[in-house]
């Protein structure tokens, strides 16, 4: 029996529905026409290929999809959805597939990098983007242009804006929601989970497009440009 067909014969729809809690169920409409990949920005700079991924899912090669590096390269621009003649909401499928991948251990590294600092900032301050500017180059530029010390709180003051502080009651409310619905627990889990390495299943790093006019990915001055803020320390309210 052909290995590639085995999963399909075993009942694709059921398996995929299980993996995505039944949320993604219109992939059989795909004509494999390729309009999605044709205009996909991620496909132009890597081996990511939405049409191919749908094909693999339909043929039961689910493991190939959820263990791939490529799955994590989608831009969520919804361009594929915009051109699709069957109105398949592929970004939504990607989001669901990423949950499935996490379930198999893939992608925890990616998720860690979002949890710290963004999700943590949300829990601590109510906003996913901290007022702390970690990029030195930006901080310096803003300081020069706004004639302040570069802190965004100062820039706001200059304009006559109040400090943006989410009220304590509101913070209590969102923390309650987070605790009650398992978000807090998920944050803890993200801390602890070990990432199972992903592989380039649709191509290789050689497909990645390099930035023009740069000989390699490391640039002189890169280290001076960015200050590595220690990850996982949460929002730094003092400066």
């Amino acid at each position, binding site marked *: 029996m052909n290995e590639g067909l085995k999963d399909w014969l075993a009942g694709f729809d059921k398996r995929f529905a299980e993996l995505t809690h039944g949320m993604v169920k219109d992939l059989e409409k795909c004509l494999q026409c390729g309009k999605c990949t044709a205009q996909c*920005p*991620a496909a132009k*700079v*890597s081996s990511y290929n939405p049409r191919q991924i749908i094909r693999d899912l339909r043929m039961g090669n689910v493991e190939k999809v959820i263990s791939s590096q490529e799955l994590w*390269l*989608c*831009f*969520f*621009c*919804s*361009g594929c*959805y*915009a051109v699709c003649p069957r109105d398949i909401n592929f*970004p939504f499928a990607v*989001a669901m597939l990423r*949950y499935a991948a996490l379930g198999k251990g893939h992608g925890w590294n*990616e*998720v860690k*990098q*979002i*949890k710290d600092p*963004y*999700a943590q900032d*949300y829990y601590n301050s109510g*906003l996913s*983007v901290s007022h702390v500017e970690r*990029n030195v*180059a*930006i901080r310096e*530029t*803003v300081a020069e*242009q*706004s004639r*302040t010390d570069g802190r*965004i709180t100062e*820039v706001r003051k*200059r*304009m006559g*804006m109040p400090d*943006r*502080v*989410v*009220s304590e009651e*509101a913070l*209590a409310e969102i923390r309650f*929601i*987070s605790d*009650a*619905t*398992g978000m807090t627990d*998920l944050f803890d889990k993200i801390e602890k989970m070990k990432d199972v390495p992903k592989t380039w299943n649709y191509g290789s*790093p050689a497909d990645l497009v390099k*930035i*023009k006019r740069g000989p390699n*990915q490391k*640039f*002189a*001055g*890169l280290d001076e*440009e960015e200050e590595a803020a220690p990850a996982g320390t949460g929002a730094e309210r003092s400066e």
Partner: protein
Amino acid sequence: MPRQERLDQVKVSDRMFMFKPCVGENKYPGIINSIMHAMPRLGVEPVESDEQTCCGGFLTFTNVAEPTSTMPAVARNVAIAEEMGLDIVTMCNGCYTFLTEFTHFMDQRPPVKKVVNTILSMIGREYKGTQQVYHAVEVFYKLKDRIAERAVRPLDGMKFATHYGCHYLNGFKNEAIDDAFMPTVLEELITACGGTPVEYEAQRECCGTGLTQVILHKEEISLPHCQRKFDSLNEAAPDAVVVQCPYCLAQLDRMQHKLNWRKITDYKVPVIHLNQLVALALGVEVEKLGFGAHAMSLDRFVEKLPPLEKTAGAREVPVG
């Protein structure tokens, strides 16, 4: 070409809730300050609340939080506006997407809405689904003629490129206010503000933020993508590029800056948000627009601005 059906659905009230975007608050606060000052000049009282938090959508689609957690958070934010009886104006493609999608999801599935409201009831709130969610571009477009009439600083001689971004037009391909591939609302608004829209080949390309790509795969995915956009944009040499989303703004602004910093490019196009454009045309003082926070300097842009036509800049127009 704008969609008349959607335009007909947009109702401008004399008080509307301004939904403040996170990237706006702490990176480009000018986006928020400009709409707070622009709206009164159009007869709308902008209402804000510090109880409002991040919309929650970003966390969902980056898989750090499941929809079961973020849907109540979104519903809570909408409930705040509902309690005041106000429709919501978002100024970010992401906020618009998440608030709209999640509320539609709940409205179409009463059992889900019930569960969400059970959680909300424990914090003394309720999501009813009585209010509308709009994007600032929809509201401004509806008020296009009013903007043109009340523009005390028409931006004559200023050339603007546009960047609509992806989520709003693509994600709502049938319901958004304009067509996904050949939109004109921003160009029309630029004209209403007195400016001249300028074309460039990569106009409808994604900014390259890619939700997380700029965080996770900046060097290998995000930068190579947007470099092409910047090349095309700079060739057209507008005075600024207008965006309708703070995430796009951050990307176009900071990545041009980064590539310049590395001395591999000499990009020159500064980036402003639609709110700032409209505020400028309506005569809001430049100091209130937060240009200092923009990495790509707006100094030359500000020098080129035409003077206010009428005196007494901060003329508050009576409501209505």
